[in-house]
């Protein structure tokens, strides 16, 4: 073996991954926004006015900051779940369905538990929402673990099933009196307090306690991933299932656990959405948070702490979109184009990663090649 081989690592490269982790997602967003502007321009709009409207719509007033936080909340929580799944090598594309079930369970139990004090009923409802989301992920998880049915297809199918389930419940058994397909308003004990009611220093309109729960969860998920055997096993299976299995880790059990954790967080996001803003269930209560969450998690490179800024970014885009439509006459649909672009660039950015990793691997395996 040549001396060149003996040099096991290149310490100078150690900082590179960290810089890349921060810079390339930013570049992805910048590029996506640039293309978004181009689309606006080409369809006869004014990209500058649109951006200004977007920005002021997201951050212009405390109320608008509140809207941004409001929309970031479900993205943050569902994004954490997706990140956990990705870390285990699972693509929970159907988080939207688990989110629906979480909202459904929250609303249903909330209506039942009207008599309790919020101190008891809120934690109970949030846990129930998580359980609902986890349960909805459980069947796809078991199918993945036992027969290898791809979770991308099964969780997606379960999303459609969940939507029809909710749409039946709000016109059927849970329907409130009146023409609108929705449930009754939740009792006060089942409603998450607004930030401005918690403290006068937080005058953020409709934003509620959910964002605080979300940020706290980001820290919790990060600690779980890094410092518990649960997280260790999830990462091991995500990186190399065969080696994990050889180390006594059950791939099937880890798959089920991870997809259920992912589902639990999605369910919590849906539950918080119902308890925090809508205070009732109706069939359009989520505007695709489960799908936007994919962009959030990928942009954060599946790092739980990075999910927070990524969620706020997409929350701001979503909150500002309405103002953009009103003031600059640009369709809110532009935002979902930008989401797609961000995911695409993050995926394509894996190229940068891949090139560098491949080079490192090559250096290592070159001795095997000779």
């Amino acid at each position, binding site marked *: 073996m040549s001396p060149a081989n003996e040099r096991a690592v290149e310490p100078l490269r150690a900082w590179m991954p960290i810089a890349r982790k921060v810079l390339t997602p930013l570049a992805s967003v910048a590029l996506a926004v640039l293309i978004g502007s181009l*689309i606006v321009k080409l*369809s*006869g709009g004014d990209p500058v006015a649109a951006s200004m409207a977007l920005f002021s719509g997201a951050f212009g007033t405390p109320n608008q900051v509140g809207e941004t936080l409001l929309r970031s909340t479900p993205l943050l929580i569902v994004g954490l779940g997706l990140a956990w799944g990705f870390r285990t090598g699972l*693509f929970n*594309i159907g988080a939207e369905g688990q989110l629906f079930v979480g909202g459904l369970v929250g609303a249903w139990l909330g209506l039942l538990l009207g008599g309790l004090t919020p101190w008891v009923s809120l934690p109970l409802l949030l846990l129930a929402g998580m359980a609902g989301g986890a349960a909805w992920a459980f*069947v*796809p998880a078991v*199918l993945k673990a036992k*027969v*290898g*049915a*791809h979770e*991308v*297809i*099964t969780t*997606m*199918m*379960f*999303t*459609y*099933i969940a939507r*029809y*389930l909710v*749409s*039946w419940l709000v*016109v*059927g058994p849970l329907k409130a009196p009146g023409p609108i397909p929705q449930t009754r308003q939740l009792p006060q004990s089942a409603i998450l307090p607004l930030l401005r009611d918690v403290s006068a220093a937080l005058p953020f309109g409709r934003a509620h306690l959910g964002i605080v729960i979300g940020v706290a969860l980001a820290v919790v998920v990060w600690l779980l991933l890094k410092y518990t055997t649960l997280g260790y096993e999830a990462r091991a299976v995500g990186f190399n299932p065969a080696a994990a299995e050889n180390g006594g880790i059950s791939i099937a059990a880890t798959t089920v656990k991870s997809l259920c954790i992912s589902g639990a967080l999605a369910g919590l996001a849906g539950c918080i959405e119902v308890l925090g803003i809508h205070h009732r269930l109706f069939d359009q209560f989520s505007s695709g948070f489960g*799908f936007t969450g*994919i*962009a959030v998690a*990928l942009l954060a490179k599946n790092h739980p702490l990075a999910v927070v800024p990524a969620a706020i970014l997409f929350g701001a885009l979503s909150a500002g979109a309405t103002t953009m439509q009103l003031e600059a006459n640009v*369709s809110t*649909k*532009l*935002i*979902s*184009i*930008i*989401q*797609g*672009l*961000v*995911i*695409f660039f*993050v*995926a*394509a950015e*894996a*190229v940068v990663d*891949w090139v560098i990793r*491949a080079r490192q691997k*090559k250096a290592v*395996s*070159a001795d*095997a*090649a000779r």
Partner: protein
Amino acid sequence: MPLGDVLNPDLFASAVRIATPLALAAIGGTISERSGVTNIALEGIMLTGAFAGTAVALATGNTWIGVGAAIVFGILVSLIHAFASITLKADQIVSATALNIGALGVTGYLMEVMYGHPGTTDPVTTLPPLFNFQGPATGVAGTVFQWVDGVFLSYTPIVYIAIVLAIVLNWAMYRTKWGLRLRALGEHPRAADTVGISVVRGRYLAVLASGALAGLAGANLTLEQVGTFTENMTNGRGFIALAANIFGRWTPGGSYLAALLFGFADALQIKLQVFRDVIQIPPQFYYMVPYVLTVIVLAGFMGRAIAPAAIGKPYEKEKSS
């Protein structure tokens, strides 16, 4: 419940009609996956094809040009997927998800920009059935005619195109140079490379072909079945098509038959809805049928079908091993 109201030629005819977009996309998925590239983007490609077909048909007033446009745009979107997954070696599922979300956004956005109202486009003239036979209306001869005409002769052109493609491609996959090389690419790309077959070219062609087929599937939805484009009208069909491809064991013929099974279940569910006052089941549960069936099919058959060995893996040419 009168059996004739359910078990009639129309049941089978609607099964074939419903199966057609699924089958076209599923065959597209088969070709792409046989070359080693997963194509979760079928959903977005189909949606793009459906929209482009409608928009161009509206603009030109010619539905067939719309069909052509659907195919061209299907190819264009799949070109992005091919570039990301073959050239850039990006994660194929992630890049395809980006396309699905992007396609939803772009079609929704353009619809508002072009037609000024969200939700749906203006209506378009649909393609008429290919044949129009007249036959006896009554008696045994009438019944026979109704069945033959209904089940075999009542369809629009793309329905027949799908059947022909399923048969021809199934033959081609096992009998032609193209088919042999395609199968080689998805099983062992390096082996194909070492005998001088270009992995990149073969995979690009396969992915583009799947785009053309999924685009055609979209054209069938708007230009033959519905007559307008509505937002997110594919409704998970791309994913169901992937399941059909798996159930059909990665063969064009199998994909078609699997799609036909889904089509039949869906057609039956629609027929049975007529009786929902008799058997008290809310319509939402009928709507769930294709999705539940997809899960059941995957659960039952996934373990038994053997996927192409190199599926989903980017090919690294200069890999030293």
